[in-house]
């Protein structure tokens, strides 16, 4: 009896989490404009997406921003994590605190803060403003993921290398990077996902001349549900799923 309640409750919560998403996926293949009833299977809505030149351009923007900001965020985040772990320096606690602040602070605060910075220095909104913003909010996630992995590394490896005369940059290249690689890759994948999904910050620091995918989805969703949007969301859900599963498996790996 107790077990039945437990399992049906768990099923109910999972159903709540997944049914709305599954509905979008199913209806992206339904050959009807408005009705909820199943008509017939079609790829029509996907074909319409491919012919939408504006959408293709916006997707290309998102891909470029995502790859570049995830890469930069991974480099910065890894260096920050290594610095925090290996060195004792004045302001170390402040740096750690700043990283945590960036992660828990509501996105909208970061958005208005960056908008003010750009405005103050007359920095034009467009590709660069979005790239910097995305790098900034992804970098702390990489730093925390890498940091949690460094802490679990065998510190004797680094000590041994030091005793044998390795310099810090050699230790980074020969020991730390290979051992941290799974965490860095997971951080890259999560950063790319975050960049692909961000509406809050991009909404503030973008201009009509350079639009990215999440903003396009947002403006489409404001007009109401549509089969094309179902198809577009299905594609992004599929991409996200692959990225998350890959990141998840990297995080669990001991090393590559």
């Amino acid at each position, binding site marked *: 009896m107790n077990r039945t309640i437990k399992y049906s409750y768990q099923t109910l919560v999972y159903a709540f989490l997944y049914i709305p998403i599954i509905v979008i996926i199913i209806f992206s293949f339904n050959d009807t404009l408005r009705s*909820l009833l199943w008509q017939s299977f079609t790829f029509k809505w996907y074909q319409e997406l491919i012919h939408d030149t504006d959408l293709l351009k916006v997707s290309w923007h998102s891909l470029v921003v995502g790859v570049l900001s995830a890469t930069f965020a991974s480099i910065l985040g890894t260096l920050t994590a290594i610095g925090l772990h290996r060195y004792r320096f004045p302001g170390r606690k402040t740096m750690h605190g700043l990283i945590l602040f960036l992660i828990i602070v*509501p996105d*909208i605060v970061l958005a208005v*803060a960056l908008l003010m910075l750009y405005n103050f220095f007359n920095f034009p909104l467009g590709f660069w403003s979005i790239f910097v913003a995305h790098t*900034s909010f992804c970098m702390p996630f990489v730093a925390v993921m890498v940091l*949690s992995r460094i802490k679990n590394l065998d510190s004797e490896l680094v000590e041994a290398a030091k005793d044998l005369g390795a310099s810090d940059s050699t230790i980074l290249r020969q020991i730390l990077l290979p051992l941290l690689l799974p965490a860095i890759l997971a951080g890259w994948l999560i950063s790319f996902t975050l960049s692909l999904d961000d509406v809050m910050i991009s909404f*503030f620091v973008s201009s009509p001349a350079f639009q990215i995918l999440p903003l396009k989805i*947002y403006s489409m*969703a404001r007009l109401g549900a549509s089969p094309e949007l179902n198809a577009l969301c299905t594609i992004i859900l599929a991409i996200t799923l692959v990225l998350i599963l890959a990141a998840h498996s990297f995080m669990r790996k001991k090393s590559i």
Partner: protein
Amino acid sequence: MNDRQFRFFTLSISWTWLTVFALVPTLMVIITSFLETNTTQNITAHFTLENYAELVDVAYLKIFLRSLLIAGSCTLLCLIVSYPFAYGISHSSLRYRSILLLLVIIPFWTSSLIRTYAIMTILKTKGIINTILLSLGIIHQPLQLLYTNIALFIGLTYTLLPFMLLPLYANMEKMDLTLIDAARDLGASKLTVLRKILIPITMPGILAGSMMVFLPAMTLFYIPNLLGGAKSMLLGNLIQEQFLSANNWPLGAASSVLLIIFMLLLAHWYWQRNPDSDRTELL
């Protein structure tokens, strides 16, 4: 590169980025919140507390109180739903646990915009809920669910539920189950076990989860914009409006500072209760 140079290189890169793109902008928000605007909507370098005084004005106060109420009740609902669920998963057999956990991690990282859109398609006039209710004969006219406060509340709960589930799970997974057995052996009722053992032990998880639900619930402006009606403005919408249409940046900045204060209070409360915890555990 020798070690000194390497150390300098690593730390200065991190410091430069964090200072220019995190510290300075945040300080700019705080400073601007104390500056005046003039009629041409420019910020002038005069100190004032006017922006904060304006926030307690009736119109804004109403938005604040509503944000607190909606975000607070959403957090509570997420907690009530998540608590038994996370407990169940964290103590399920090891064989299934990783897959059950993965099923929570996936929505955690999935775009909240797309998940909000998913709720839109469920609640719309010809959506699933109305169709089911109509065909069961419970209602005869489709209900107007979308663009109401109910839709907003459902949407927020749906979108933010994983952010409560994951911290709670992480906390409960480490719990020592023998404590509960011991208490039961000594004759404690189930309610006493919950009150005296479970809740105090899982408090870090409860606080971390609450923080991750409460703050976004007040600020994710696109959820009220997509699901709520004309009067469903929350704190995030207020800030968005001040910055992007009303052009009253100091007022928007003051609202943002208020959010930062909220966040620091919650974080302080969390760390006060878990002084020995690793600070990254909040994730």
